Each structure stands twice: as structure tokens, then as C-alpha cells.
């Protein structure tokens, strides 16, 4: 999967906005939205929120988890634990990037939030790498990882699968009298 595809999926998440226009309820394939009244908060998908923001028709309200103190606590927890801690949102990385790129004037202390989210991401990816490394070197058959998000899985997916494939081929070629069709050119 491409990271942009993951971002596309992330855009379906709901976020709160405060519009400055009024519109009746709209009926879209994915569900109903609205009605929109100026000054009253309403929940919309992120893709719509960003489009409206770029047309200067709304103000985006940052999600509850996007707060400096909460993120600091999460970061500390993540650093202490060996396993993965629960994430604020299954798409926290993508949402942070999208909202901070397009609506940083609506989000207080945007720079600190960016740094904190990056710290959390780095810690988790480091744990993931460690775990993948031990998985391969100890030749485990299966592993259980909780609380991983799609973006993180996506970063390791191709590497892990290809390396496991390679290992399998190498190992099966070590055994004498191997069956046909195992010599493949790379």
C-alpha cells in the first residue's frame, strides 16, 4: 500500500468544524452531513473540513487528543512500556500532518504538537523494528502486536514480508534433496 492511500483512508475520520456559512443537510453516499449554521460546530469528515478550510469557509477545531499535555503523557507512557500503548486515534500521524499543514492557525501550540507526535511515532517505530528484528533472528512462527496503526504496519510491511520470503528460500535450499521448482532467479 502506498502511504498516500493510507492518508486517503484517514480522511474519512470525523472532525469538528465551525462553518461561517449556512447550508441545509446534505445527503452523501457515505452518510448525511449537516445542517450547517454559521458559528455552530458540526462534525464532518476530514476531507470536507480541509476543502472548506482552504476556501475559507470554516474554522477547524482540533481533536481532543491534540493537546500538549495529553500528548506529553502519552509520550512518557510509550517510552516506559516495552509493548505498544493504545493510540489516541487509529490515524493519529496522518491527521496530525493534514491538520497541521492546512489549519495550523486554528491549532494552538502547533509546533510543540508536531514535535510531540513525531516523538511518539519515533518511539513506536523503534519498538517495531526491534520486534521485527527479533522475529526474524529467532525464527518465530507467529507474533502478536497490539495497538499498531495502519501507517506503522504499512512502513514495515514490504520489508518484513520480503525478508521472510528470502529467509524461507534460503532455508529451504539448505536442505539436501530439495524438491523441484525452488531455484528461482532473483
Amino acid at each position: 500500500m502506498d502511504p498516500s492511500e493510507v492518508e486517503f483512508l484517514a480522511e474519512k475520520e470525523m472532525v469538528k468544524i465551525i462553518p461561517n456559512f449556512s447550508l441545509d443537510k446534505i445527503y452523501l453516499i457515505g452518510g448525511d452531513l449537516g445542517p450547517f449554521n454559521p458559528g455552530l460546530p458540526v462534525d464532518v469528515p476530514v476531507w470536507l473540513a480541509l476543502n472548506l478550510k482552504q476556501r475559507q469557509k470554516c474554522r477547524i477545531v482540533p481533536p481532543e487528543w491534540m493537546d500538549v499535555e495529553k500528548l506529553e503523557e502519552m509520550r512518557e507512557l510509550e517510552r516506559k512500556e516495552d509493548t505498544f500503548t493504545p493510540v489516541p486515534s487509529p490515524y493519529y500521524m496522518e491527521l496530525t500532518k493534514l491538520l497541521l499543514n492546512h489549519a495550523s492557525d486554528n491549532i494552538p501550540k502547533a509546533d510543540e504538537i508536531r514535535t510531540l507526535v513525531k516523538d511518539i511515532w519515533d518511539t513506536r517505530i523503534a519498538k517495531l523494528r526491534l520486534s521485527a528484528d527479533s522475529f526474524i533472528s529467532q525464527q518465530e512462527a507467529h507474533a502478536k502486536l497490539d495497538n499498531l496503526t495502519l501507517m506503522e504496519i504499512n512502513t514495515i510491511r514490504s520489508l518484513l514480508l520480503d525478508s521472510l520470503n528470502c529467509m524461507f528460500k534460503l532455508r529451504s535450499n539448505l536442505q539436501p534433496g530439495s524438491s523441484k521448482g525452488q531455484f528461482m532467479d532473483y
Partner: protein
Amino acid sequence: MRYENLVFKYSALFHCDQIQYTLVPVTGWQDLGTAFLEHKEQFRYFVLINCGANVDLLEMLQPDDDSIFFICDTHRPVDVVNVYNDTQIKLLIKQDDDLGVPSYDDIFRDDDDEEGDDSGNESDEGSEPSGKRRRFDEYLVLLILSTMTELMLMFHLFHRREILFDYEQYEYHGTSAAMMFFELAWVLTKDTKDMLWWAVIGLTDQWVHDKITHMKYVTDIATMQRHVSRHNHRNEDEENSLSIDCMRISFEYDLRLTLYQHWSLYESICNSCYTSCSFKLWTLNGQKKLQEFLADMGLPLKQVRQKFNSMDMSIKENLRDVIEESSNKYGMKDIRIQTFGVHFGFKNRFLASDMVHAAAALLESAEKDESNSDNFIKALDALSRSNLERLHSGIDLAKKKLMAVQQTVASCICTNLILSQGPFLYCYLMEGTPDVKLFSKPMALTLLCKYLLKAFVHSTRNKRCRLLPLIMAAPKDVDKGTVIVVGIPPESETSDKKNFFGRAFEKAAESTSSRTLHDHFDTSSKFIYNICSILHPL
């Protein structure tokens, strides 16, 4: 000219409401006519930005009856037909801008019979209710006056001609169109910081190119300052500080040294008109004075010749105050000017005048393969914050242009190329002059002309010459043998920036029957095929 920032704002407004539009940059009346002919079938509404107010638009373009024109133009005087036309022409003008338009009755006459020479273009007039609003042509065939009505008519017409002459004699500029559009956006509550910044750039462009008086500049700056404070207080307070990437506009009482933050301080002082003319840097004495000035401020030469960003912090901290103090000693009382600066991200700090110079340099860059529209798009790009490379390349071009201007000024003064032709001063740039290609464009040539006049006034001892206007000619197209001519009013502290050369050039062209192309919207620059004609006294 200042089309870029207005166009930006206009497109921003249109984008908000998802209105489809086509953008056509034009460089002169001919371009405007061609563009209009190309598009007139498809469109009903035309918005003219910074062109079209000072000429009779309906007569020039011959539009259909249902075409409507919205004109936002700073060129004054506004043609009287445009002012009094109710149906097809809508002017966007600030209320306090004093137009001084003569009253309707003085110019037009509701009369059934008309005397005089009806030009062939009465067809649009014919569509309006007959007998109510007719326009009399200026050029009348003189008939023998026998009746009172005819006498009265003659008086009226002479009076009218006088009024119109007074009204149209001097050309000047009104409030920046960029500011007009910003106010429009503000009224519609669609104003953003970006638009505010573009309005500031529009205003600064008027000041940099000497189109408005100092008073007007200061007044308009005060207006902009109100908007800037309003935007700055909107989002920011102590606890919730904004991201560094957000755009911040701040009021600066900054130095009048062009591009100094993107150059070295030394180069900036040498190439800014104000300092170069005050020190007379084309003379040896002037250079010595400059060294004294730098020593007086305690700035080591090594530091001053370095790129500004690499100068020591300790020097940069109080630089403005130190320079102001020393400048006062050397007779430069106005080294600081009120302006605005923008700052987004950690690296990007620009003053409004930096952006003006960059955009102007890009707009008139003299590369062979680029058409005027390409240059326009590049300049437009540079003003948006997303294309900083373009902006930096614009700043580099502006530096080259300024250096070329200074060198040309120095050589003109040292070799006495400025001749006094009686009522005016005259200078002609020969074809072999270095960088003469840069000066084949009206804005660059006008800039050179103004700097040259300032420098001349500072260097000459002849008191009478100081009060004369300057006409400058430069080759426009070497292959075709055309020349571009610019005229500017005399240099004075209290100048009201009104330029009479538009009409003067037209008269001169007629009286010498030379082939001229009065193509530019700013009527004080023209092309002339035969340069000798301009030496005829006006």
C-alpha cells in the same frame, strides 16, 4: 505593473466562491484591444484592473450593449465619459478619493440639435435615448456665429474645452487598486492575511515607483496598520501562540536601503537612490564620505561587505538606530520609512519593498524567449508564498537592475549626457550603453529617469536647472529602430506627483507628425520612431 497582487486577490476571491474566470495580462492599449476582441463573444462581464479608466472605453473597445465593465484603476484623471456612464461602466473608487470631475452640466448638454463634427463612432450613442445625452466632440468646425444660440453654444464649448483641459491636463494616481480590492474583500468578510499582505505590497509599489505623495503614503499606511492590528490580535495571545509557519505581518519603521536584508549593507547603501544621491557616490569625494559614514557608526568594512544575514548579531541589533543617528549628521533626515514586513517560517523575512522590487524585476525581465504573459505569470508566482525560489530569483534580478541603474546614472552624470533643452532636460541613452536592454521597458526606464533627475539635482550648481522636468529616451527595439520616451515632472520636496507629459507628448507628436504609439496606460511613456522630433520645443 501592480496587476500581480490585485490579480492574486481577485483570484482568491473568485476561488472562494468557485466562479470561473479567465485571466489576461495586457501591456498596453493595443494588447487590451486585441484581448477584448478575442474574448468578447464568450463573456459578458469584464473586470479591468489598473487599466481603462483614463480613456473613453466604450469608444475604444466598441463592446456589445450588454457587456458590463468593472474598472478598478489608479490612473487619474478618470475619463469623464466613464464617470457619467450609468449602464455599462462601473468604477470601483474609494469614497474619499477626490476625483475633481467637472460637473455634468458643464460638459454635456441635453440638446436636440448638435453643431459640430460628429465622429463616425456615434453608433453606441445612438442606442441610448436620443436627445438626452449626447457628447460633443472637442474638435469643432468653426461656423460663422449669427444667432444667440450659436454664440451660447460656442461659449459653452470653449468653456467645456477649458474645463476638460484643466481636468485632463495632469496625470496622477489614486489609491492603490490592491487596497481597493482588499477593502472590498473586508466588506465581504473574506479578507485574509495573504490579501492584506498583497494590499500592503500594492501600496508600497506606489511609493517605490514614486506614484503617490508622501502624505498619501503615510495616510494609507495608517489605514493598513489598522487592518494589520486587527488580524494580529485575532489569533494570538500569550498562552496559545501560533505556529512559526503561520504568516505574521508586522509594522516596521525600517531603513530606506533597498533590499538590504538580502544583500550586503555596503552594496545596499551604494545602490539605493536616497543614499547614493545624498553622498554623491559617483564622485571620489562621495566614496570618501561613505567610508567616513561607516567609520562614524563603528561598522568594520569587513562586516559591512558581508551578506547581511552573516553579519554579527551584535551589529545587527541596534543597526537601525545607529544608522539613523549617523545619517542625521550627514544630512539624510529620512533614512527610515514606515513600512511592513512579513515573516513566515524560520528563514523567511521580507519587507514589502523587497517584494515590490522582485516582482517588478520579474515582470520586466528582458530575456529574449519570454513573452510578457510569461513574465506576468512568473511575477505572480513570486508573490505567492509557495514559490520562494521564484521570489529569490526575482530579488537577484532586482539587484542586477539596481546596479545597472546606478552605473548608468553615474556614467550619465560624469559624462554630462544630460542636456538642457530650454524648458526641459533631456537625456538619450545610446545603443551601446551597457545594460541598455533593461531600460527598454517603461517601469525600468521611469525608475532610471527618477534616479537620474535626483542625482542631477544634487550634482548641478545651476539653480534654474534644478527646477526643470526631465525627458529620457532609450532604444526600445534595435531592429525596428524604435525608441521609448519617458517624461517626469521636476524634482521637488512638495511635489504632488502630477505629470503633464501625457498630453504634452500627444501634442508634440501631432505637431511634428512623427509616428508614435501611445500605447502605455501611463500616458507619460511613449514610443517614437523619429527621435529628432522630440527636440522641438513644446
